């Protein structure tokens, strides 16, 4: 393998792929092609069909029509195992490994080397050590996977795929849990795999990374292929507009609009946390938020951003420092107390911590409000329906009606329902943890706009995001975290990318 990139003999060719689900046409005659030694990125909003296309390729779903040819041979993978056997390997966004088994066991799972018919443990160990060394990651492969951070776990997942000697490697949002350093390391590995002739399908939302690593970019929208472009010949603005279908000028205008509504507010802080910390989790730090102010929390992965949020909301108990709300000291021991004080919290992991999948959109929306009222005073059906209708309209939630189970909505719409949940409860302080994570560009812009609107209306907001530009753009002040410590706070003129990076980097060098 490893011949010249020719367009007549692609490694992988999917043509005319169609897939229907009850009520929706997920893919409409989509073509996708991959050359060996190429990184071809698949982009599109949520619901555009990216993950469906991937699942057809990897054998999770059967296709309704169309052809898939791997190295010229027609294939019909009916399971992930079959796809793996054909040479198509996938690394998923959620770490799909076994947390209770060791790193070494995970890497060889299902293909354990045998000696005289029985499992060869020494070989398992050496294979794992070799695989991790290839990725330049030094860890003890005999420890359970769960004892390592998500970033390391992802590396193990990638190492496993590499060991399987895949011909086609599908990376589904691989960097969403990696920091810049680890992402860089991943790209080095990708380039190495490219040179070896692997074809790589890359799915990602991070525009910078997409442009850095891709050879070609295919854009899907509403189940159709919008176009396949050579990365070098495409500008960021062009790409984004293709994805959301808006005119390029409109997208540019959206960015401007955000900058204008930013107005700093003075006054007594609504929330004032002094020296709060939690042993083995967060070092004592100060954080305050005024009404009508957005305080961003920025930092690399593992810096403790979500932990800070969970401390403020009472999910984790702080064992140092004090929290004052409107001047009065409070013991925030659980979320209910926080909610009673006027807090709201949009968690990072909406699937595990946010949505109640079988319950309807309406029930999901009114939950926090109802919890506030207590178990006795149930909101009448009419009140509930009015609430649901109001927010479905206001937040443009795409759902046929309020009774649909939220689990059937796309990620972006689920996020909107969760935002509605907290708006309904009318908090005075809203903590948003990665509110635009995993949702499409169009929805991202709307969420940002909504955040700024709420702030203008007088809400205090804590805005956590791993996208530094986003944090800088939307915040009045930014708290900078590094290694579970607060290392700085930027405001005014210091509020720029350079200063932010400096602040994060400075402490790293200082130790």
């Amino acid at each position: 393998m490893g011949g010249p990139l020719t367009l007549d003999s692609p490694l992988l060719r999917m043509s005319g792929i169609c897939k229907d689900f009850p009520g929706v046409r997920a893919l409409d005659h989509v073509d996708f092609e991959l050359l060996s030694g190429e990184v071809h990125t698949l982009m599109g909003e949520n619901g555009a069909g990216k993950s469906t296309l991937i699942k057809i390729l990897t054998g999770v779903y059967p296709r309704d029509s169309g052809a898939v040819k791997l190295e010229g041979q027609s294939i019909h993978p009916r399971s992930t195992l079959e796809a793996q056997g054909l040479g198509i390997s996938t690394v998923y966004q959620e770490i799909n490994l076994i947390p209770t088994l060791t790193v070494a066991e995970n890497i060889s799972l299902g293909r354990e080397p045998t000696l005289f018919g029985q499992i060869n443990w020494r070989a398992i160990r050496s294979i794992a050590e070799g695989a991790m060394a290839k990725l330049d990651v030094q860890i003890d492969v005999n420890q359970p996977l769960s004892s390592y951070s998500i970033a390391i776990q992802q590396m193990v997942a990638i190492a496993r795929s590499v060991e399987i000697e895949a011909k086609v490697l599908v990376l589904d949002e691989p960097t969403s849990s990696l920091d810049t350093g680890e992402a860089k390391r991943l790209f080095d590995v990708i380039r190495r795999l490219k040179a070896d002739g692997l074809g790589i399908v890359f799915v990602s939302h991070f525009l910078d990374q997409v442009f850095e690593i891709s050879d070609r970019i295919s854009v899907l929208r509403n189940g159709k292929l919008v176009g396949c472009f050579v990365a070098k010949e495409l500008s960021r603005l062009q790409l984004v507009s293709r994805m959301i279908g808006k005119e390029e000028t409109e997208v540019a205008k959206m960015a401007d609009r955000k900058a204008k509504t930013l107005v700093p507010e003075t006054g007594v802080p609504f929330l004032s946390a002094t020296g709060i910390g939690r042993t083995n989790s967060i070092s004592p730090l100060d954080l305050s938020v005024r009404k009508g102010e957005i305080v961003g929390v920025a930092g690399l992965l593992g810096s403790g951003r979500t932990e800070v949020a969970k401390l403020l909301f009472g999910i984790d108990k702080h064992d140092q420092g004090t929290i004052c709300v409107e001047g009065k000291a409070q013991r925030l021991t659980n979320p209910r107390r926080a909610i009673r004080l006027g807090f709201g919290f949009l968690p990072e992991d909406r699937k595990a911590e946010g949505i109640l999948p079988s319950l309807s959109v309406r029930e999901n929306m009114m939950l926090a409000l109802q919890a506030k009222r207590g178990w006795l005073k149930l909101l009448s059906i009419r009140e509930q329906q009015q609430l649901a209708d109001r927010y479905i309209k206001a937040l443009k939630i795409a759902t046929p009606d309020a009774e649909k189970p939220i689990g059937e909505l796309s990620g972006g719409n689920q996020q909107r329902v969760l935002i509605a949940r907290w708006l309904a409860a009318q908090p005075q302080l809203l903590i948003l943890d990665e509110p635009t994570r995993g949702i499409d560009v169009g929805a991202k812009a709307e969420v940002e706009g909504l955040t700024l609107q709420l702030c203008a209306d007088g809400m205090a907001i804590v805005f956590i995001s791993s996208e530094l530009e986003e944090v800088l753009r939307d915040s009045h002040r930014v708290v900078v975290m590094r290694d579970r410590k607060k290392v700085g706070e930027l405001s005014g003129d210091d509020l720029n990318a350079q200063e932010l990076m400096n602040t994060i980097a400075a402490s790293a060098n200082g130790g």
Partner: protein
Amino acid sequence: MAVKFQPSNWGRWVWAMLSLGLILLFDLLFVPGFFAIEIRDGHLFGSLIDILNRGAPVMLLAIGMTLVIATGGVDLSVGATMAIVGSVAALMVSKGHPSVVAVLLVCLLVATALGLWNGVLVAVFRIQPIVATLILMVSGRGIAQLLTDGQVIPFDDKALGFIGGGFLFKVPFSITLVLLTLAATALLTRRTALGLFIESVGNNGIASRYAGIDVRSVQLFVYAFSGFCAGVAGLVATSNIRAADANNTGLNLELDAILAVVIGGTLLTGGRFQLVGSLLGALVIQALTTTILTKGVPIEYTLVVKALTVLAVCLLQSERFRAAFRAPRRAA
């Protein structure tokens, strides 16, 4: 509007209805005199009444079990609780506590306390429900046996005997109790936010907690309530035989209760629950058993039939199974 009659809620307990319908149809066609209801000694008698009467304990258990399963848990200890309650009741009566009210109160208190114990293990110590309730299931029967020293203790108390054997307005009192419990539970869960909270906790406990629901209290409640229902069931069963039999009272009934709940459409994994469905499920089980006995089939076959019923219900409720019968996969 208390019960939400929406298509999404329908699908599940319709199966229970259908199963019950099928069994009764069979009885209508093949078991002469099954539907005969006559009045003897001033009350209603007949196979149908028999089903309702004998099924009362399981129905009561199923009501409490429904809420527990809805939170994603399970209560294996209800049978043992029934036995303990029976022992306590018999002991109190035999030691000369004539006040029925006192006996009832103590028994229900004990049962609720046992339920609360389970609740604490699950909610506070965060122990898996199967294991937590397994502990009481294993040791509870031992406790019940200890209290009565393994003997069957008969008692002769008219008031207590009424609970299981008496008739109110010609209808067995046990049935009245079931209906009362059902009504009270339905009101409690649907007219307040409790039902919503229970379904929420079962669907996603973490998200419920972050949304401000007091998950711990919800869990404590459902297990305590399950214990309470087991207490009522224990009183009915004990009163039925007018004796405390620690070895056999409630034996394996928890399994029947769980089966009833599943037949009724509540998923074992939790979330949406169907109270009426659970009662129908209990009726299905009891109707099956009674039909078989009336037909003269030896008892051992009821077990095999029960087994096949469980399997059939599970298969019908399984998405995978039903999908296998829909349009065959089109190979591309």
